[in-house]
Structures are given as structure tokens and as C-alpha cells.
């Protein structure tokens, strides 16, 4: 079974603080590294190449939901390089 690291954080925030959280993620995308650390779990992500982006929104009565999901696979270019093709 593949090893899996998880990081989870759940909270209430006001919209000002939400922007600060999002900004730190934006900075992570810019630098190519997003680190998520806690006393128990540490994950470092390197978003690069193709990233699948899913944005979902729902409004039902008073309830609103906006989910933004990004997923990607770590690049395997080095492994591809071992195959030689001649014509």
C-alpha cells in the first residue's frame, strides 16, 4: 500500500483572514513549494506541471459552499529519460 501523508485543518475564519490563508497558498504556488506543518504531520508539496483545478459552488437556502480543489502528480521526467527510441 502506498504511504500517505495527511494534513487537515478546520476552522471558522472571517473573510479578511481567509484572504491571508489564500495568500500564503498563492505564495506557495509562486515559489513552487507549499509546506504544511503541524506537531504531528509535515507535508511539503511541489505544485508544478499540469494541475487539475476543480471549482464547485452551491447555494441552497442560507447555506453556501465553495470548494476549490487542485490535484497533480509529481513529475516523473527522470524515469521517462531512461527509455531510448531510435528511428
Amino acid at each position: 500500500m502506498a504511504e500517505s501523508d495527511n494534513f487537515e485543518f478546520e476552522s471558522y475564519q472571517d473573510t479578511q483572514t481567509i484572504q491571508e490563508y489564500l495568500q500564503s497558498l498563492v505564495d506557495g504556488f509562486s515559489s513552487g513549494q507549499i509546506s504544511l506543518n503541524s506537531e504531528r504531520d509535515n507535508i511539503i508539496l511541489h505544485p508544478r506541471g499540469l494541475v487539475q483545478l476543480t471549482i464547485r459552488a452551491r447555494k441552497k437556502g442560507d447555506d453556501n459552499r465553495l470548494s476549490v480543489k487542485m490535484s497533480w502528480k509529481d513529475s516523473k521526467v527522470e524515469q521517462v529519460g531512461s527509455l531510448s527510441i531510435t528511428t
Partner: protein
Amino acid sequence: MLDKIIETFKFLAIEVRAQTRLTSELLDDFSEELFDKLASKDDHIDNLKAIVENECFSQIHGTEVIDSKEVNDIRAIHVICVNLERIADFCVNAANQMQYLTDNDFIHDYDYKSMFTEIRQGLSKVILVFQSKDLGAAIDICRAEYNLDRMYKENFDRMMALLEKGKNTGNLVTVIFIFRYLERIGDSLLNIGEALIFSIIGDRIKIRQIEALEKTLSESGFDGTLADIDFSTIWGSRSGCRISKVDNKSPSGFKAQGIFKEGDRTKVKKEKENIVKWDEIQPNLAPKVFGYYERKDKASLLVEFFPGCTLQETLLSQGDEIAQNALFILDQTIEEIWEKTKKPNSIKTDYMSQLSSRLDQVIKVHPGFYRHRKDISGFQILSTRRLIIRCGEIENQLEAPFTVFIHGDFNVNNIYYDNDLQRVNYIDLYRSADFDYIQDASVFLVSNFRLPVTERRLRNRLNSASAHFFHAFKKFAETNNDTSFEIRMALALARSFYTSSRFEMNIIFAKEMYLRAQYLLEKVAGHGGKPWEDFKLPQQLLFL
């Protein structure tokens, strides 16, 4: 079916009583033949007890519908029979010790006969009391234990004095063992007496509590007997106090309904003293004290029972008009009391230390309700403990600018509303003191929030009550120039949301309270260094 159980129970009681007589005779004049008789009877007693036990359980778990009175009787019979059988065992054990005496007459120097008389007198009443439901006689059975303890102590002291002289040590130790078995028979008699009390009043009330009630009633000027008292609704144990509702059975008996509390002396005494203070501040707000009695570290209090509903019941089960009336009158009452008791001394609050002291209890119930330090790409999130410390430091720089006389546990369960009299009443007043009004205000708001209501209509009612009272509290703050109201309220609400989550087993609802508390703590911590009066509490947190 109950008749059959009672029949076997009677046989058992008779056999055990006979067994105690036989043991006494055996101590008078030991013989192997008598001991064999005693031992063989013991097997018969074991069988009788097993029969009663089987019948009790099959009756309770059978298909036949039985009322609560019968269930109480069956439970009492079971406890009594277990203890009767134990008494028979103690008899055999005591008699068995005789073989270790080098001289059978040695025991005759000590007064075991009086102890057997006391035991037999107790045992002779068991069936009678069970049938007559005579509470006084049940209490007499309990008291046999006191008498047996006293007799044991007298004999024991004599034996110890002789042991110290170093003579006849073997025989003395053997006799001590015998007397110790007789003393343990007393413990079983006490259990039997308490089981009989249970079958009479339907509550597991201890003899100590009965005596406290007797004394408290006599303090209140009640000249009847306990038989005139009807113990009805039992309110269980709260804050370490046993609380029962006491009512009058006969017209000549106790004139009013009362709440009987018995528990830790400091708490009960404090409650009584606070009731006196409340009465001076606002007559008819706190319950009247009918009686008070202290004994060692315990005290008991008999107070007036309010016939209305708690505010919780009013909000959840009454129509809009009555609920509105209740809230209107409460609003007026609070304002009147706060204005009347306001003292211009500023005071430090302790909301964060209250939270710290209960944090472990919350985590015990909800292990996930603790946040560890986190870092999201450089964005720092404090651990819960760090956050509480930071908020505690901020709280330390704040002061409530004045005090009022607060209730101390101002939740919607501790407020009564009588629609006929258009009056509210406060109960459970042992924590009342001169303190920050936000203590009461925050407890009230969160107790309203945490009522387990999902139905939208009722939830809207609770939300609008919270909104109304929050505005009323804020207005009071403004009128009294309390500029740190919102930040102190945030700390106090965080404390109440967090600590209340331990009473909520619905994890989604409990998490709502935990996350709200975390948010408030973060918001206060983030405000450090800015003027207190600029802090804005998001009211939305009070609504669901």
C-alpha cells in the same frame, strides 16, 4: 408472580434469623453437631437466595407489564436477599472461628449477646417493614448498624488493651475476628434498611440523607413525621448535591412543596447565605429557605419549589406569547438587579483560567477538540494551549470597570418563569458573588445556544432571544461606559462554548461550539496591541 417472590423472600428472612440465633447458641456452647447444623442450613439459604434472584430477574425481564412500584419492590427484594444471604455467611464464618480458641469460654468475657439481640431485632422487622412500608421502622433497621458499630468498638478496645499486654494473643485475635463478622452483619443490615427505604420512597436515598431531611424539616417548623412527606420527582445529583422534590401528603403536613438538597457543607452553606443576600436585593427572586442543617462536612437545605417552568422549558414548549413574556420579564429583572447591585470597583476576570482548568475534561470527551500548532506555508496557527495563554495575557490587561451581584451559573435551566405571577425566579445560587456581569451574560447566551434544537421555528426563537439579550447587554455596557465589553464578552463566550462542548455528545453540534471558541480566541489574540474598544464581536457566532 410477586407473591411467589415475597413468599420465598419470607422463608429466607426467617431462615437467616434462625441462623443468627443458632450462631449465638454456638458461641454460648460450641459443639461440632451444632456447627454441622449451621453449615447445612447455609446451603439451604444459598438456594433460597438463588431462587429469589432468578425470580426477580425473570420478573423484571419477562413479558408481563409491571408498574414502577412493583419494579422498585423487586429491586429492593433482590438487594435485601443478597444481604440476608451475606449475613448467613458471616454467621458461619464467625462460628468457624470457634475451633481456633484454646478455650471456648474465652469469648464469654465479651458481650456478643447484645450484638446478636440488636441483629435479631433488625432482622425481625424486615418482612413487616416491607409489607407496611413504614419509613420510620426502615430507618430503625438502618440504625442497627450504628449500634453494632458502637458495640464492636467497645469490645474491640477492651481486646486491644489486653493484646498490648501480650497475653492470650491467639484467643484475642480469634475473638476479634468473630466480633468483626458481627460488625459486618451490621453493614448488611444497613443495606437492607436502605433497600427498604428505596421500596417506600422510590429513591436511592441514604440514611444519612434521610436524617438530614428530618433535621432540616424540623428546622423548618414542620412537626409531622417523615410519613407525611411524599418524595416525588427526583432531580438527581447536580454539582455533587443530592436534590429531591419534597411534597406534602396529608393536608396537615408540610404546607409547601420544597426542594431538598444535601451535599458538601461549603457549597450548601454558601447557597443558603447567598439566598439571604438575594432576598435583600430582590425579594421573591430566590427560593425561600425552609430549613437548614449541618453535620460535619455535609449540610442540607430545604428550599421553596417554584411551580412554574424553567426558562428552557418555556422557550422550548410554550407558545410565542408566553415565551416573549418570559424573556421580557427576565430582561427587566436582569437590568433592575444589575443597576441595583452595581459597585464602582473594577475587577479582574478569570475566563481563561476557567477554560484552562476544564480543557482536559473537554479533551477527555472529545479527543479531537484540541488544535496543535500549525504552519501553512509560513502562515502560523497557534496551538490551543498557546492561544489560551496569549488570551490570558490579554485578559490580564483588562478589567471589568464595575461589579454587579451575579447569579454565578446563569443558564436557562437555573431560571424559572411563572406566567401566572409574571415573575422570574433564580435557583442554584451557591456561586453568586460580586463579579463581572459578563460572566452571567455569556453563560446565559451559550446556554441558550446549546439547547438541542434543530427545528427551524424553535431555533429562530432561540436566535432572536440571543440577539435581543446581546443587544440589551451591550446597551448596559454603553450606558455604563464599559469600553472593553466586546473583548471580555469574546473571552467569556469562548470559555463557555469550549467548556459546554463536553456536555454535548452530538459531535457535529459539539464541534460547532469548539470551532466558535477557537475562532473567538484567535480573534482576541490577533487584537493584542490595538485599543480594546475597537474590538468587534461577530454576533453571528451566537446564532445557529
